[in-house]
């Protein structure tokens, strides 16, 4: 077999690679990723897009491999997206949800994961209410771990698909002004977005009531505003977060009506924005609260593009972590 230097030379000469090698067997968050790694995932995802549009929507890249969705929190969209992505790579998929599992009988996360792994699993996709759960799992199991959302910490594939959609529509990320609006304090989507957008040179403005946009968020390299009308004219992109009533411990704003009036994006407010403003939302939308139907379904909306791109991005992530695992395990 060729030694390492030879394969590097082959890779460069054959022109079949950008010369960049993805070395991460897990995807736990975007905070640690280098800009080159982010771009590599996006470029790889671009290559996967055509799989979803042709008549046979399946490639053999993960044939005979097993992907487990380990979801300890409710999710429809993300779990479905991961399932379909894994299936389009020809992997077998097992769904394991917290509610129906032995977790209710007191089994720990690590025990559960190790038991599932013992059945022969290649990739675990984990959603968990505790920040850091995927990191713990990655240390305790031998297979690849992909974070599908851990508490209020990170949701890396959502961050990547937002980034992918922005780059696809705006043709660049650097120099763009992106507002993230809503419940920043409880949002893993916001954190993953901030990490990724900052690395690729976007300007980020976090917008929301003081109770949901704490001043400490400035440390992540973002600006803060509590006035959406003042910010909107400068924005290339607004990412409208869902108000997560299930995460709010106490009333964070006086009333839903007031929140909607101050921080909701509706047709009237859109008049302040640039004609090419891109509106994103990670879903599911509280229609009439953070987003009007006229905006969610209107010409500025990239929301369904996000869902479509989510498949390509998750296919790319599953493919890349598995490739890295093969290299690490030397088989």
């Amino acid at each position, binding site marked *: 077999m060729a030694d390492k230097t030879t394969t590097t030379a082959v890779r460069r000469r054959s022109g079949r690679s950008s010369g960049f090698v993805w070395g991460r067997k897990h995807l736990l968050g975007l905070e640690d990723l280098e800009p080159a790694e982010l771009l590599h995932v996006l470029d790889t995802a671009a290559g996967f897009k055509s*799989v979803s549009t*042709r008549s046979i929507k399946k490639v053999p890249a993960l044939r005979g491999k097993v992907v487990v969705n380990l979801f300890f929190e409710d999710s429809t969209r993300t779990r479905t997206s991961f399932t379909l992505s894994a299936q389009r790579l020809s992997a077998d998929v097992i769904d394991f949800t917290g509610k129906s599992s032995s977790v209710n009988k007191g089994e720990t996360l690590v025990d559960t994961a190790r038991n599932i792994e013992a059945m022969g699993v290649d990739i675990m996709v984990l959603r968990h209410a505790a920040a850091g759960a995927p990191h713990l799992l990655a240390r305790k199991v031998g297979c690849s771990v992909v974070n599908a959302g851990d508490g209020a910490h990170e949701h890396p594939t959502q961050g990547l698909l937002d980034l992918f959609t922005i780059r696809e529509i705006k043709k660049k990320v650097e120099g763009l002004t992106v507002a993230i609006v809503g419940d920043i304090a409880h949002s893993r989507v916001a954190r993953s977005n901030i990490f990724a957008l900052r690395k690729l040179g976007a300007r980020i403005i976090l917008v929301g009531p003081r109770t949901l946009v704490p001043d400490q968020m400035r440390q992540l390299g973002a600006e803060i505003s509590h006035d959406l009308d003042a910010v909107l004219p400068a924005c290339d992109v607004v990412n409208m977060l869902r108000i997560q009533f299930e995460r709010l411990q106490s009333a964070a704003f006086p009333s839903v009506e007031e929140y909607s009036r101050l921080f909701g994006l509706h047709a009237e407010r859109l008049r302040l924005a640039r004609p090419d403003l891109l509106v994103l939302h990670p879903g599911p939308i509280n229609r009439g609260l953070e987003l009007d139907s006229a905006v969610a379904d209107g010409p500025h909306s990239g929301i369904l593009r996000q869902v479509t791109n989510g498949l390509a991005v998750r296919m790319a992530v599953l493919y890349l972590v598995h490739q890295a695992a093969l290299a690490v395990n030397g088989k």
Partner: protein
Amino acid sequence: MPKKADNSGSAGSEETLLDAAGVKRAMDHLCREIAGALPGDCPVAIIGLRSRGDELAARLIERLAEGGRGDLLHGTLDITLYRDDVSKRMIQPQVRATVIDFDLDDACVVLVDDVLHTGRTIRAAMDALMDYGRPAAVRLAVLVDRGGREMPICPDFVGKTLKLSPSDSRRVYLDLAETDGADRVYLK
């Protein structure tokens, strides 16, 4: 894979097999062969394999259009996800898009690749192609055939056949003016 021969030189040494003029002669020959065999009664698609094959396909289409065949469809196939050697060779090729924006059913396809060696790339390419439709026929055009097949695959159109020792484990590469500055075929 056979053990690398002692006399194959250090990792950096290269042996030019075809210079720019040689590549041009091979390309001329390949064009003539294809032009003489193109069917006129069904849509014809020239589909290049990434990478280098896609540039060759673009060149072929331009040349064949000059010869009166301006009706050829142009596609690009990325076979990364269909390869059988990714884990074995521990290489990590960049996944890129396949572009076939026409109906492949009942078309006559000419697959274009730069160097034909083991035939595994073509095996993967046919698998990939079949996921896009059911062509009436698939032909294979390569600029260079270096021998050493490991699969039952035989090219229909060849620009230049190289006579290499079966024990020579060096690889044959094609550089193109579009991507590498100059046309050249070499061993390394």
